[in-house]
Every structure is written in C-alpha cells, then in structure tokens.
C-alpha cells in the first residue's frame, strides 16, 4: 500500500516536474486519438449517408402482360426472395399510367384516351438494402420468367458505389497511416523524454533500486498521461463533432448523422483504453532501454 502510494506520488511529481514533456506527450497522444476518432466518425457518417441514398435507389421491373394475378404474385415472391431486396412494391398498369400522366403535368389529358386501353405493362418497384451486389441482383432479376424489362439507373448506382469504394479505400489508408503516425510519434516522444532522464535512471540503479522499483512510477505516469490525453481528446472530439457536424446535419436534414449515446460511450471507452495502453506500453518499452546498466 505504502509503495503504491509512493509510486503514484512519484508519477504525479514527475509529471509536474517535467511539465513540458508531459504536456507534449499528452498533446501528441490526444491529437492522435482525435485523428483516429475523427476518421472513425467520418467514415461512420459517410456510410450512413450512402446507406440513405441507397435506400432511395430503386429498380423498376416490367412484367409480361400475359401473366395472371397468381403469376404476378409469383414473380413478386421470387423477387422478394432475392438477397439484397428490401422492398418490392407492385405498380399496376393503371398506377403506371397515372404516374406518366403526372409526369406530363398539364398535358396529362394527352393520355386520357388510354385509360381503358392501357399500353403500359404491370411492374414492381424494388428497393435494395445496399448497392454492393447491384449487378448480381439485376442478373438474378433477368432470369425470373415473366419479367420483360428491367429499368435501372445503373449509372448513378455505379457512381455511388465508386464513391463509396474510394471513401472506404481512403478511410483504410488514412487509418493505417494515422495509426503508424501515432505509434511513431508517441514512442519517439517517450524515447526522447527517457533520453532526458537517462542519467536519472542510471543514478537510481547505482544506489540499488531494482528494475521494477524504477519502472513502476513510469508505468503510473504513462497511465496518467494516457488517461488525461484520452479525456482531453474525447472532450475536443465531442466538441468538434457537435459544432460543425451539427451544422451540417441541420443543413442536410439528415438526422441519421448523430452518433447514438451508446456509440458515444463506446468512443469514450475506446479512447480511454487506447490512451492508457499506449501510455503504459510506451513507458515500458522506453524505460527498458535505459534499465540496462
């Protein structure tokens, strides 16, 4: 007990005495956490937006006029059975004509003569859960007998997919790079801090301190620095996230952009864990070199 209090006290003392260095470490660690957190939040939000756009993406299929009501229902069931199909709504000949009329606006009366002799086919309006397997879905649809025509905005679908792919590529690369930067920077900061203390550690060993006696205060110090950094990072992250993103959100009326409170709690937990682990590991790794006296 007395020892733990001593080690903890030493850690606090050391953080205070090496204020500059401690602040540097805390700052660097916090910044790295913020970068990581931001990239997580951004990719989370971007995929949300894409999912939303996808949700509105639809395929229209037209049916052979020869099908009777049962046949039409059959096709509907087959479509619904496909993976990735979220919704499949029947659009009758009449509804299709009404839509055409609506599209023509004031010229709708042009089509008024066709109400009885409707030249438009029955169809299904299909919503997909996602666009990843868009072309496979289209191919599967083509194979369903009774479907005579598939109408799709393939172009838009493709483009959205491309954007998503690029964003996730960029996200992955950014994440990898940032993780490496974090490790690099923190290990260097701690190494430099250790370098400054080399003499101190040396002397401690010469008066008979064991390795762990020297190590413990550094471990606590790393832990404290990690904790402070993660709390700081979380605060800043939350602020960054709230202010400008909240503005964007209201701009776009995209309520889905909010992180749920569980996600926020998860983020906090992740920050604290990451901060403490990095802090302690950094301390241990860096101290190791200088203990060899």
């Amino acid at each position, binding site marked *: 007990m*007395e020892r733990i209090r*001593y080690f903890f006290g030493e850690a606090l003392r050391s953080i205070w*005495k*090496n204020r500059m260095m401690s602040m540097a470490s805390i700052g660097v660690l916090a910044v790295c956490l913020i970068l990581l957190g931001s990239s997580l939040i951004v990719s989370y939000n971007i995929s949300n937006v894409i999912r939303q756009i996808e949700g509105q993406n639809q395929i229209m299929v037209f049916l052979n006029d020869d099908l009777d009501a049962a046949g039409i229902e059959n096709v509907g069931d087959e479509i619904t059975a496909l993976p990735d199909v979220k919704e499949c709504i029947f659009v009758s000949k009449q509804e299709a004509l009404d839509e055409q009329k609506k599209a023509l606006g004031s010229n709708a009366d042009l089509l008024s003569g066709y109400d009885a002799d409707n030249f438009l086919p029955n169809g299904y309006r299909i919503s997909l859960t996602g666009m990843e397997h868009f072309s496979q879905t289209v191919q599967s649809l083509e194979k369903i007998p009774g479907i005579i025509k598939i109408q799709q905005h393939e172009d838009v679908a493709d483009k959205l997919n491309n954007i998503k792919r690029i964003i996730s590529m960029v996200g992955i690369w950014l994440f990898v790079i940032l993780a490496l930067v974090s490790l690099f920077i923190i290990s260097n900061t701690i190494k430099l801090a250790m370098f400054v203390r080399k*003499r*101190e550690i*040396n*002397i*401690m*060993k*010469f*008066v*008979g*301190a*064991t*390795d762990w*006696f020297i190590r413990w205060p550094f471990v606590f110090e790393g832990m404290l620095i990690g904790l402070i950094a993660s709390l700081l990072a979380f605060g800043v992250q939350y602020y960054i996230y709230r202010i400008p993103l909240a503005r964007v959100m209201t701009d776009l009326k995209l309520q889905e952009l909010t992180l749920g409170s569980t996600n926020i709690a998860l983020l906090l937990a992740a920050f604290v864990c990451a901060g403490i682990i990095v802090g302690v590991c950094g301390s241990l790794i860096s101290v190791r070199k200088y203990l*060899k*006296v």
Partner: protein
Amino acid sequence: MIEFIDVYKIYENGTKALKGINLKIDEGEFVFVRGASGAGKSTLVKLLLHEEKPSAGEVIVNGYYVSKMTRQEVPYLRRTMGVVFQDFRLIPNMTAFENVAFAMRATGARRRDIRRRVPYVLGLVGLAGKARSHPSQLSGGEQQRVSLARALVNNPSIIVADEPTGNIDPNLTFEVMEMLDEINRRGTTIVMVTHDTTIVERYAYHRIVTIDGGEIAEDLPGSNV
C-alpha cells in the same frame, strides 16, 4: 569482504585501465587508494559496483561474483555498498533530501524511518539547512556532501568513496575523515580513493594501496590492528 583476483580491464577504445590487480580487503578494514590521475582508481570502484565488468579475472564483493551476476542480483549487490561518486551523481530534479531519501526508499525502507533518518544524516555532513535545495543550487562541496550522506544513509557494510573531499575545505575534510574513522571503528569496511596527501599522512595508520598505470605499485598495511 572484497577480493580482486587477477583483474584486467580494457575499455572498448583499447585503454588498458587495469592490468592484473590482486587485492584482498577484509571486513572492517580502512583502505586508502591513491595513485596518479588516470591510474585506474575509479575503474576499480566501477568494477566493485558492477558499473563495468572485468575484461578478465574476478571481483568478489560480499559473496557476489561480479563477473557472473545476473541482472536481477545487481541491485542487491549495490545495496550492500554506500558509494560516494567522484562526479557526485545526484539526481538533478530531486532536492538534497529526496536524493538521500531515494537511496533508502530503493531498499524498501518505510516512510517513517526515512523521515527520521535522512535529516539526521544530512545533519552529520553539515547540510541540515540545505535539504530543500536542488543540486544546481548547491556549491561543489555541498553536492559532494549530499553524495556522502547518500552513501551513509543505509548503514552499508562497505563504504566506497571516490575522492570524497576533493571539493571541501580542510576543516570540513577533517570532520568528514573523523566521521568515516568512527564509522570504520564500528565495523564498516571503508575504501577511500584520494589524492590528498595531507589526509593520507594524517591517517597513515590505515592501509594504503598505491596504484600506478593499472597495477598495484605499493600496499602498505595499516598499523592500528
């Protein structure tokens, strides 16, 4: 008990600091080690402390075979000795009190004992008023005395002092010598490296080992036994 058996020390850059040292120091002895600058006196001290390993031969300190020690044992070897370093080796961001206290704490001493013992030892070396000063706020002689206080604080069975009076004035030197003599009389082994001929002449009843060019040139036994 300290024993050097055929010890050679050749530094990485090729300097032959010690060339076949054979020396046995019994428990309770007081030994002066003298010799020209660069003779190898501090190297001898470094070997005792496992700061450097012998290139050949064996050093035995209180039963530890220095050249064959594991990393885990080293701190326990060092705790049996109190060392005054030639360059003081005080921790810059600790006060005089904390520097001395650290040596006690490292051995697992209790806070209560530390708070009683450290001021007492600092008082012994005449630094009661400087306990809160950092090394950079102390004069050369004051730093040297903090180093001495640190060596004394754990009541070690061996005290090794490398030039402990190089920065202090004759009166203080005399006081320090009297203190070491008293400690020695109570049974502590003392190895003291010094250039000060005045001291050596005054305490000539102790054993005097002279080192020259890495070898023992002379070994005058003490006369007080």
